[in-house]
């Protein structure tokens, strides 16, 4: 597939749409929104015992750019450690998808969703360790 085709696929045929069980201890969930436009996004990560992200899912209720941003984000974080995933910047997502300035907030949403999902997972793990 050519580069452009790959990008377009995130719009036409988004990857990793769906949900994991929120209660599972190896799942982290991040829910974020953009009040400017009312978009809501849920992004979930699933990790193995080494804290590597093995899988990711999302649901995005918003415009095409929000969906493409989360589709790309879930693809990118797979196989990464939590620390590596935290490094993903909204600007990387925006430039990969060639988002226009008015759609920048969609990529911000995806970045924040990753961070929230990681925080959620770390909170769960910390609770586990205190047991």
């Amino acid at each position, binding site marked *: 597939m050519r580069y452009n085709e790959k990008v377009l696929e995130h719009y036409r045929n988004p990857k990793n749409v769906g*949900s994991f069980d929120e209660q599972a201890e190896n799942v982290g969930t991040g*829910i*974020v*929104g*953009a*009040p*400017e*436009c*009312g*978009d*809501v996004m*849920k992004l979930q990560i699933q990790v193995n015992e080494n804290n590597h992200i093995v899988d990711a899912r999302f*649901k995005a*209720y918003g415009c095409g750019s929000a969906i493409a941003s989360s589709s790309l984000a879930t693809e990118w974080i797979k196989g990464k450690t939590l620390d590596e995933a935290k490094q993903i910047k909204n600007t990387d997502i925006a430039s990969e998808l060639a988002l226009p300035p008015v759609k920048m907030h969609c990529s911000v949403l995806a970045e924040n969703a990753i961070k929230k999902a990681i925080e959620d997972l770390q909170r769960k793990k910390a609770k586990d360790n205190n047991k």
Partner: protein
Amino acid sequence: METQNLYPHRCSKCNAQMFSPVVCQSCQTLFDIERDVDYFTMFGFERKFDIDSEELEKRFIELSRLVHPDFHSNDVDNVMMLSMQITSELNQAYETLSDPIKRAEYLLALSGGPDAEKDKSTPEELLPYILHLRESFEFAQAQDDKAKTDEIRQSIKVLKEQTEQRIFQLARELNSPSNDNSLRSELRKQLNAIRYINNLARFVNV
């Protein structure tokens, strides 16, 4: 409602009492208002949330007529320009004040409160609840479960009404001189909430 003559100025041309700073209703002179005249003042209202919507409409129609470019077609060019400029400002002001949510949003901005870009906070647990309602609705729809979709629509309607009432209540409190930052943040939060709720309401046709 006692709102007459709250703009207590006299026309600099004919000395008649004006109710709006944009035009004199006696001699039809247009005035180039400074940028800091707010929408309430434009219509001769006090700067507060509760306004008489019938009176607002009446004044809007009256002012639009007085300011209308057709009415000033024989005037010099710069008056024509001014007439078009004021007409567009009046339209924007009317659109804002006639919608209570937009009016609350506008009052918050006037009082120095944050906009949605700066403060994206929402009431605790709102976003998960919005997602839950949306997913349940999609699920029920796929199952052709009419009773369930109706029930979810009803929940959304209630949530919308409650949030609107909360916004109106907070916007009313904004008038009092004791308004503080926590009131402004709370209003911002509820105004953010209503955007998500309205999106959802549109989606389920409430």
